[in-house]
């Protein structure tokens, strides 16, 4: 890393795309998309498992998908996560204008929304486990459900820790060519979490409600 990379960027300066101005940034960008391709396959195996194990044969104890899921909570969670995706777009918008303060502010809003989502998911799981007898070990449907939705929740938690770490680590440094790519790929990760959630609310909750 050269010392140029650590020079603080301020509004009014170039470059236009600080996340791809260095070779290191370009490599991070490519490497991260490669990782996302792998994540797609990983989640597909969990979705495949869930789709194979959500029928009545594997639902031997506790309620099935149609009785279990409440669409109100899922809808609220969906809107919250979708909005957090938009707020991280705002953060990257301000990064491209080299406005560090506003970028941190919008990332802070993203983190707050992400925490709300995570809180609601924990509440949902708590209700299922305490009041519905739907646990990880109750039946194959339970295992497949918690493996898929819980793994997504784990990704949300990891994304939150990642963004908070970046925000704290760079709070006094400001934006530079060294950390701009880091912020950029963290936002890509956050969008990817939302991509997975779109399929979860469609395949798990909506199709579960339809009994199909």
């Amino acid at each position, binding site marked *: 890393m050269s010392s140029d990379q650590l020079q603080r960027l301020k*509004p*009014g*300066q*170039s470059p*236009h795309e600080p996340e*791809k101005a260095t070779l290191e940034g370009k490599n991070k*960008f*490519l490497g991260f*998309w*490669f990782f*996302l*391709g*792998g*994540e*797609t*396959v990983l*989640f*597909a*195996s969990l*979705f*495949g*498992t869930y*789709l*194979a*194990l959500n*029928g009545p044969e594997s639902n031997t104890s506790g309620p099935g998908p149609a009785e279990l899921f409440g*669409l109100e909570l899922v*809808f609220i969670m*969906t*809107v919250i996560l*979708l909005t957090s*995706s*938009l707020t991280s*777009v*705002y953060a990257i*918008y301000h990064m*491209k*204008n*080299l406005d560090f303060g506003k970028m941190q502010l919008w990332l802070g809003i993203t983190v707050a929304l992400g925490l709300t989502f995570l809180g609601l998911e924990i509440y949902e799981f708590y209700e299922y486990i305490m009041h519905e007898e739907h646990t990880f070990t109750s039946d194959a449907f339970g295992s497949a459900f918690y493996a898929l939705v819980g793994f997504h929740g784990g990704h949300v938690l990891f994304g939150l820790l990642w963004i908070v770490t970046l925000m704290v680590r760079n709070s006094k440094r400001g934006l530079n060519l060294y950390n701009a790519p880091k912020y950029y790929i963290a936002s*890509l990760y956050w*969008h*990817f979490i*939302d*991509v997975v959630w*779109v*399929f979860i*609310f*469609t*395949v798990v909750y*909506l*199709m579960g*409600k*339809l*009994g*199909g």
Partner: protein
Amino acid sequence: MAKNTNSTSYEFYKQKNKEEMKYQLITFALMIIFTLVAFGMVIAEYNPMFTIPVIILLACVQVGFQLYYFMHMSHKGHGLPALFLYSGIFVALLTVLAMVTIVWW
């Protein structure tokens, strides 16, 4: 590079970023609408044989918006990311197809 060329190009890109942000907001509005339609169709209890393909299609379109606008895949220089992602999607589809057909067919 002279200082004033920098600030001119800064203003130029700032304007460009602003225009892009407008498209991002339209994208967001469309995604919310798709979500509302998907939930609405399930609540309205249409025939599942009709509802399921439609909500899956809505999910795919919504994810496309997310990838191409929010994650900037519509921008230049995203050839390799597209290759990586579509390879992933190809294997993903095969995986889901294999698991589902083994059990349900």
